[in-house]
Structures are given as structure tokens and as C-alpha cells.
């Protein structure tokens, strides 16, 4: 193996053979080392959350990844390839350019007996973002999300000063021994939090300047999205061998309470987009 070992000869054969061997070793080692180095860099750069989302997004089932424009029927049903980051999706830019979101007529939309105030934007992870006057936003669980969790056993809200990343972990809700993680809808720093009994809400101020809301759903997209979500909920529940929703699928106030036997962990995972 080494020139100083017994019986080693500098022949063409040994040169080729050992050459190839060492090359392979080198390449493999280099690959692993590079991956490690890169990973360190990423960790240092606080990219962990983004990457977590990307890999979870990759594991999500097809119909959870449907593009928002597919929901509205602008394009035929295809999956998003940007991890719901419409900010750098040229297609999205085109669509928005084609018809800018019109201002809502009424102040609230009622879907399946659930109220969705239109003074705010919605995130695919069932959170809403309400811009406040001072440039900060309030973040909270949307109605379906709230009903999905019902009365939480506990909520771990991030302390003020925590830096949130879009699609990173916003906060966690304890219920039935499972930890449901709620995706953060925006980048920003937590300034205040509360409302544990209603699933919790956060007050978030942007890192710098203003927020980017491009990836959030607007009023027009709300209904189609919710329809799809209800379908998914149906499937998830059926999948979890739970009885279909009461009366044509109007979610009750506390869905888990309606049927304790169900594998709610799975349902939550499905609905809160856990990979």
C-alpha cells in the first residue's frame, strides 16, 4: 500500500491500481468534508430553519404543495417548486402583474361557518398576519387552525427578541402529548406574545424596513384555499379513521374534542404542513 511496505514495486500496474484507489479515497473524503463544511456555514448563517422547511416541504404530499394559483384555477393543478416562497417565483410575479389583488369588498368572509377577517393576510400554515399601525404585525392562528387545536394543553411562545424565519418554527402548541409546531408566516423579531388560550399570537417587528408579504394569501385566494384545506382535512380525518365532519363539513369549535379516538397527531401534521 505504501512504497515502504515489503514487496512494493514501482510497476505500472501498482501505480495505476494504487493511484485509482487513492483517488477514490480522496474524492469520497473530499465529498464528506465539503458537506460538513457547508453544513457548518449554513448553521452559522442561521439557515437551519429555511433548510428544515425546504426538506419538510419536499416530504409533503402532492396536494399539500399545490401552487396558490392552481387553487384559484389560474393554472392547472401543479405543485409549488419554491417552497411557498412566492417572493422569488417569476410565475407569481406575472400573475400578480396580470391582475393585482383587488381590495376586499367586505370586512370578513365566512367559510363553512368560520369567520376569516379580511384585514389580514393568511399563511398556508394556518396563521394570519395583521399589519399594525407602527409597522409591526400581529401573528395568530386562523380560525380553522384554532378549531383544529381546540383548547390547547399548553403553548410555548417565543420570548421577545426571538428572530423568526418565514416557514421556520413560529411557536409550539402542546396538545395530547403531541407538540404541534406552527409555521412562522414572516421574517421578523418577536416583540410581544400572548393569547395562549386562543392558540397564541405574536407581535412581530421586521428585522429592517418593512415586511415582505408576497408569499401570503390574499382575500381572493381565501375561499379556494379553504376548500382545498377542507378536502385535505377530510382526507386526513378519513386517513386517521375519524368520522367525517358533522353536517356537511362545518368544523365544530373544538374538533379534537368531538372525537378523541382519532390519531390527531397525524391530522395536525397534515394540516400544519409538517413533513
Amino acid at each position, binding site marked *: *500500500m505504501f512504497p515502504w*511496505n*515489503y*514487496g*512494493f514495486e514501482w*510497476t505500472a*500496474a*501498482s501505480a495505476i*491500481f*494504487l493511484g485509482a*484507489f487513492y483517488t*477514490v*479515497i480522496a*474524492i*469520497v473524503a473530499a*465529498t*464528506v468534508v*465539503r*458537506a*460538513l463544511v*457547508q*453544513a457548518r456555514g*449554513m*448553521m452559522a448563517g442561521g*439557515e*437551519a430553519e429555511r*433548510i*428544515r422547511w*425546504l*426538506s419538510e416541504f419536499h*416530504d409533503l*404530499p*402532492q*396536494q399539500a404543495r399545490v401552487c396558490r394559483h392552481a387553487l384559484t*384555477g389560474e393554472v392547472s393543478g401543479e405543485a409549488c417548486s419554491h417552497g411557498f416562497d412566492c417572493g422569488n417565483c417569476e410565475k407569481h410575479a406575472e400573475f400578480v402583474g396580470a391582475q393585482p389583488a383587488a381590495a376586499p369588498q367586505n370586512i370578513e368572509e365566512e367559510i*363553512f361557518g368560520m369567520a376569516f377577517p379580511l384585514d389580514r393576510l393568511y399563511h398556508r400554515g394556518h396563521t394570519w398576519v395583521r399589519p399594525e399601525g407602527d409597522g409591526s404585525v400581529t401573528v395568530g392562528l386562523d380560525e380553522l387552525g384554532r378549531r383544529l387545536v381546540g383548547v390547547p394543553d399548553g403553548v410555548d411562545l417565543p420570548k421577545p427578541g426571538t428572530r423568526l424565519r418565514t416557514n421556520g418554527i413560529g411557536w409550539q402548541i402542546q396538545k395530547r402529548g403531541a407538540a404541534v409546531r406552527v409555521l412562522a408566516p414572516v421574517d421578523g423579531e418577536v416583540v410581544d406574545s400572548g393569547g395562549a388560550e386562543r392558540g397564541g399570537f405574536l407581535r412581530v417587528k421586521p428585522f429592517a424596513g418593512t415586511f415582505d408579504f408576497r408569499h401570503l394569501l390574499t382575500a381572493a385566494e381565501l375561499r*379556494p384555499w379553504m*376548500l382545498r384545506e*377542507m*378536502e385535505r382535512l*377530510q*382526507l386526513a380525518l*378519513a*386517513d386517521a379513521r375519524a368520522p*367525517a365532519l358533522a353536517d*356537511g*363539513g362545518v368544523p365544530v369549535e373544538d374538533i379534537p374534542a368531538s372525537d378523541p379516538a382519532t390519531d390527531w*397527531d*397525524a391530522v395536525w*401534521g*397534515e394540516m400544519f404542513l*409538517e*413533513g
Partner: protein
Amino acid sequence: MDKAFIARGVRRCSTGKFVLWIAPWAALLVFGLYSAGLCLVKGLNQTNMDNRFVFGLWIFLDLTVIALGAGAFFTGFLLYIIKVKEMKAVINSAVVIGLVCYSGAVAALLVDVGQPLRFWFTFWYPNVHSMLTEVTFCITCYLTVLAIEYLPIVLRNRKLRQVPGFLVFEFELHKLVYVLAGVGTFLSFFHQGSLGGLFGVLRGHPFAFREGLAVWPSTFFLFILSAAAVGPSFILLTTWVASKISRKRLVEAQVLQRLGRISGLLLTAYVLAKTMDTLIWINRTSPGTGFPAWQYYSWKPFGTWILFAEIVVFGLIPALILVAPRLRARTGWLVSAATLACLGIALNRFVQTVQTLALPTLGFDPFLSYAPSWQEVGTFLGVVAFGMLVYSLSFRYLNLFPQERDLQAAAVPAEEPVLAGRY
């Protein structure tokens, strides 16, 4: 109770059921370890091998599983090098299969040598002209590669992924996986080949001896081809078996068909090459060494039927089934063809090892037979059990079949969705 480890959105049997499933395999593994231990402590006198039958069940096992494990490198090659997207559905499973086969083979080899403590001699004082050196180097390297390829799959486990570092490393490693796939292909190419060369160079055994290119006898290339041909078949087979046992749809039908098609095309090529090689051997190589080829087949039970079985029954027939789209489309045909192909490779390796050693060379040699001792069989079963365990555990806790979740969602009888057909 182990729910926290099982990926979201896939269904797995209860822990109790799973324990019941692996318990017998675990027992078998323990028995295997005991047998192997006997051979290591008391020496190879525990086996029924002898000075004429120097290789037995174990070498046959090694050659066979390594051929079947070729699916790992070949699927990787298809997916990452020539971008056959369907392979994404089975690549993880393929990697696990490969890891299982190769680690099993290496374990068996370590028991098989007389002085396991000296395994590193081969690396320290390599004789670069020996096919076995090539095999040893390539297999150990490739096993490392497989382990590295297996790592990301493990790190994506639901529990482990919660460690941010793991996920990020997995993410980064996955970006570079094509490099590993390339290296793996290179290594596999050579060790599959040299496994064939192992017997092809045996000038002393005209039954196995073949002429070839440069330092490589024709069996070198035949083994590469056959391994590449059967690898996908084996992946196909294991996937099918896994979905039958777990009663789940794991991949879309066309994935299996694609595998079958690839396997079929290569198998056809292999059968042609093998036939040509056999003809050359019968008419030139063998007579050249003073051995008329017919005499090999004059020893019962190894009549010419074995040649026929190898080339036609287990070669041509599955090849034809797999290349015919209409037959391939029927799961029954697809699976049985794949099975035939895998059996064919096993038979070929059997002929290479056992028949070669059984046939006499000297005029006054007897024709020998050999039956493995229970210690050999035990070790053999231990390797099989090891494979089953690793695969079962991986199947339960890791995401071997990315399509499973979607297929499962699709399979759910969604009763009248609200305002159905609205879009």
C-alpha cells in the same frame, strides 16, 4: 410507542406486531452469530470445505448477494448520472439493499478466511495482479460509499431530523450525492468485474478459464453486465415483496415497469454476450487447454441441462418477458420474470464456484461433491437474517419510498368532498 420515530403520513403496523415480525429474524441472527463464532474460535475445520472444495456456500453467497446488490449502484447511476427520474422512487430502498448485501458479504468473507486477524494484510501488502485484491479494495471502498449514502436516509428519520445540524448536513450531503453515485458506479464496475475475473483467470481450471481483454477475462465483463441487468430486477422484486408484506402501495406501477424494462434490455444483451462467450469457450479456449468441453458435462448431476437452464430458462425467457411491454404491464409476469432473472444470476454464480471446484482436472482425480455443515448454513442464514432486520427497521423508521405518502393519500376513499367538482 415508537410513533415519534415513524415518518408522518405513512402508516406502520403496531409496535407489538413489528416485534413479532422481527423476533424470528433476530433469533436466526443470533444462531448465525453463534455458528460464525464457532468457525472463528475453533477454525474452519467446523465447515465441510476441504483442500479440493476450498470455497463453499459462503463464496457462493458472496458472489450472489453482491450481484443482486448491484441494484444500488445501478439505480444511483440511472438517477444521478443519466437522470432517470422514476428511480427517485426506489433509490433509498436500493441503497439499503446494497448496504445489506455488501455488509453481509464482507461479514461472510471475514469468517471465510483462515486468519481473519490478518485481513489488513491485503491492503498492506497488496498483490495488484490478483483479482481478489481488486475485489477486496473495491468492496471495502464501496461499502464505505454505501454507508455514506445511507447516512442521509437515516438522518431524515422523524426524530433525528429534529437535530438541526443533522438536517442541514443531510441537505448538503444530498447535494453532492451524485459524486458518490459516480464513485460507486466506478467501484462497482470494477469489483463486479473482478468477481467474475476471480474464476475467469483460473488457468488451472479450464472449466472456468476464459480469454479476454488485456488483464481481464471475458467473465469480468459478463459479471458486470449480468449484475447491472439483475440489480434492477432485484430492486423490483424487493419493492414488490415489501409492498405485499406491508400491504401498501409503495411506488407507482410504471416505476416497476421501468425497472423491468431496463433489466430486460440489459439481460438480453447479457444473454447474447454469454452465448457468444460460451461458444468461443467450447470451440477454442477449452480445447486449447487440452480439455474437450463435453467432458465437463459428463459428470452427473452437472449435465448440459445446467448450461441450458443458465442461458435459456433463467436468461433468455425473463429477458423476453421484460422487454415485451404487454407482458411487463402485468404484475404477475413482471415479478416472475424478475424472480427468474435473480435465480439465473444465482445459478450462474453457483456454476462459477461450486461446479468449477467439483470438476476434476487431473486424469486420476475424482469428481467431488460437497454439502455445507450446519455451521456454514447457520452463518449463511445469519447473513440473510441480518439483511431482513436492517431492511425491516429501515422500512419502518426511514423514508424508503418517497411516493408512499402520496399513494396512500390517493388510496384513501375520499367520500364526497365538500362542494366537489367546484374546480
